[in-house]
């Protein structure tokens, strides 16, 4: 049988390649100075979904909540092998903490319909909370396996997965549908040339509308025709707002977020001057190589 796998992904500022102007003088993140990238562990989640597609056959649906520009991570998912993409975007969703976000994404999952498996990256590099995946599972009343390294097998309505724990791993089984959060334990496949050449044309309805800024009666018809053509070619990225997914306005965005940021600090870690070298031939060998490579020797 073929499965439907839903992967939640997020577009995040690239906090791993920080430039000098990454922080504002006020100590907040300067998002304009950081390029927007695909959250790294969400790529691991997508890779796991695509491996399941390779092994068992699956329809892989990728969804994200974000600004209209987040459609780019959806296209990148399509370049890698996803079958469908869903963007949830609405000004009312702005300012969401993990509670509001997980509520919104659980509404999105219900809107998408029956899925066998939901995969999320363990955590996003902009917040590092690791809370959204588990909270979605709770809201959908699904079993969850967190910190998954690999799926051992899927069959007979059950999934067996291996997850990382302190000092080792454990293998767990859960009935489907289930939610997994995935860690950096696989090597996400590169984008595929032919899929890029096809799916670079994939658009959300608002991107199509934006390309016709002076929408009048005739342009409205043009937009409709374009949307129909995109849908017919599998190039339409579904786009939902808060009411499309049936979200309660009091539980989304800023109003639905009890978390308040009190203070953000830029912490500078100081390096220690001392360094210990094990008194073995190997330790000394390593030290000599280090001294050669920083040119103290040679």
């Amino acid at each position, binding site marked *: 049988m073929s499965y439907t796998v839903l992967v939640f992904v997020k577009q995040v500022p690239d906090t791993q390649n920080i430039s000098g102007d990454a922080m504002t003088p006020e100590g907040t993140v300067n998002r304009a100075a950081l390029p927007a990238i695909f959250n790294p562990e969400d790529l691991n989640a997508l890779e796991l979904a695509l491996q399941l597609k390779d092994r068992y056959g699956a329809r892989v649906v990728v969804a994200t909540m974000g600004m209209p520009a987040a459609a780019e991570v959806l296209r990148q998912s399509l370049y890698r092998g996803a079958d469908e993409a869903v963007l949830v975007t609405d000004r009312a969703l702005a300012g969401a903490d993990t509670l509001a976000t997980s509520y919104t994404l659980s509404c999105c999952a219900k809107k998408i319909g029956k899925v066998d498996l939901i995969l999320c990256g363990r955590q996003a590099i902009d917040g590092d909370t690791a809370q959204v995946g588990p909270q979605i599972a709770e809201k959908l009343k699904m079993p969850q396996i967190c910190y998954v390294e690999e799926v051992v097998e899927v069959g007979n309505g059950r999934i067996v997965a291996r997850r990382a724990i302190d000092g080792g791993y454990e293998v767990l089984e859960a009935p489907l549908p289930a939610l997994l959060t995935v860690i950096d334990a696989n090597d996400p496949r590169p*984008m595929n040339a032919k899929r890029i050449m096809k799916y670079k044309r994939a658009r959300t309805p608002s991107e199509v509308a934006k390309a016709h800024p002076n929408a009048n009666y005739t342009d409205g018809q043009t937009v409709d025709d374009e949307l129909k053509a995109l849908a017919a070619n599998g190039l339409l990225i579904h786009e939902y707002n808060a009411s499309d997914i049936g979200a309660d306005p009091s539980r989304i965005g800023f109003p639905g977020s009890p978390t308040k940021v009190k203070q953000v600090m830029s912490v500078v870690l100081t390096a220690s001057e001392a360094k210990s070298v094990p008194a073995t031939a190997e330790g000394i060998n390593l030290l000599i190589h280090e001294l050669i490579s920083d040119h103290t020797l040679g």
Partner: protein
Amino acid sequence: MANFFKDNSDLVFTLNNLELEEIADLREENYKFASEFENAPTNFADALDNYNRVLSVVGEICGDRIEPRSRTVDAEGPKFADGVVTYHPLTVQNLKDLTQAGVMGVMLDHKFGGLNFPVSVYTMMTEMVSRADGSLQNIFGLQDIAETINFFGSDEQREKYLPKFASGEYDGSMDLTEPDFGSDLQSVRLRAWQDEKTGQWYLNGMKRFITNGCAKVHLVLARSEEGTTDGRGLSMFICEACPQLVVRRIENKLGIHGVATTELQYNDVPAQLCGKRRFGLIKYVMSLMNGARVAISGQAVGIAEAAYREARKYASERIQFKKSIDQFPAIYDMLSLMKVKLTAARALLYETTRVVDLRNGYTHLVEHGGDAVTAEDRARQKYYNKVAAVLTPMCKALATEMVNQIAYDAIQIHGGTGFMKDFNAERFYRDARITNIYEGTTQLQIVAAIGGVIQRDNDQRIAELAGLGYTGKLARLRDKVMALHARQLEAVKFVAERKDPAYHDLMARSLVEMETYIFVGLLLLRDAMKCEAREAIAERFVLDSIPEFEKRFMRVVSGDVTLIDNNRDIIDY
């Protein structure tokens, strides 16, 4: 987070200034495939956008994945036991990454699952792969085998092999060299015989130095005509890996450790004829080799890029006498010369691929265009065929000698450190060394190029390039190059009129190199006109080439034949 495309301003400039429009129009047959294949482009802008995007993906794979694995691949290499070659796990992972990226059938038609990209864009991938791991190119570059089957095979052979090449399921090898015949391929002995009852062909004999000889699909040059001794008795065959095709050993090489170079024994290996009998060497292998010569030039440019970057980085970090060594004239002279040579080789490489693409495009049009083919199309096909035949060997000679010089200087800039295996410089030096040997030594490239130089096959293009609207400094530099051109015509005339084959052969290398200085000088001036930041490189190249040209000119017009008479006295003393 390294991207070997985006971090290379010269490569990005080249892609966007190569004027690929005519090539893409021909390749996509005026974009008629767009209605049939969802990934085919609808116009030139769309095609160029595809090239940029896909090159960027390959650049990222090369920078983030392949390059970090290259030291281990070089140190450990493939294994051979019980007749079976096993590639290093990291080489396998490299190939898996490239296969998943869908770039194992870059030039193949859409209908066979390929990207239908031109040679120019494919060569850019070649270059980046080689910069990341010189040895990996020897496997990635075997896409040329599929291209040869596409050109010369039957429809059945295309259907059978090409989709599996495009999907990465099949890999290939070209089995030409034998223990006794390398440069002298017309004497190849491996025997092809045909069972009279069934019509089945079988191959019997030995091949040596076969890159990736453990491949699934082999193109083999074999003697099908009993009693013949020259190139006209050779045909090309396709065979597949089977128990009768035995890998006897893998070679222990100076460089390109990641790829297996094998000795093969054919014990009545079943094979199919590819193309027509007797055309094996004179048509198909020459075409295959010319494709491979462009690819090896790309490999040379890629390794040179890696070596240059390593040298530049080291020179900027190494402090001696209280300053970084790149501030000393002796070092910045070397670094500048390396960069100028690298840029020059790249300019000639992509001018060559552009001409090869135009030749392929017009050849396809002439052969398949039916009544729509005009006399102009035929004239263009003939013209580009002629120019490709001289530029390909000129380019290989320049690029592969250049990479050796750059890799040599990269070690020199590192000093004693560069001699150590802890640094990359020595690996680039080892990997570079084969490039001016295989697919025809530099000496053979000169033999291939000299005819076109004597016949002045480049003069039309030289006139076009000289006629671009240069002003100021660029116009003065153009005049300097064209002064060399006038002297080149004089030198060519001098040699041609002597009608002395030995003197002609002795002076051939000088004449080809003189031609290269002129041609590349004009290419760099053309590029400088489009981009001001390239002016210093063009100027350096032209000014440096004047004494180099003069040295060779003096030798050519000296008429000095003493070496022909007394070379034994020197060699045997």
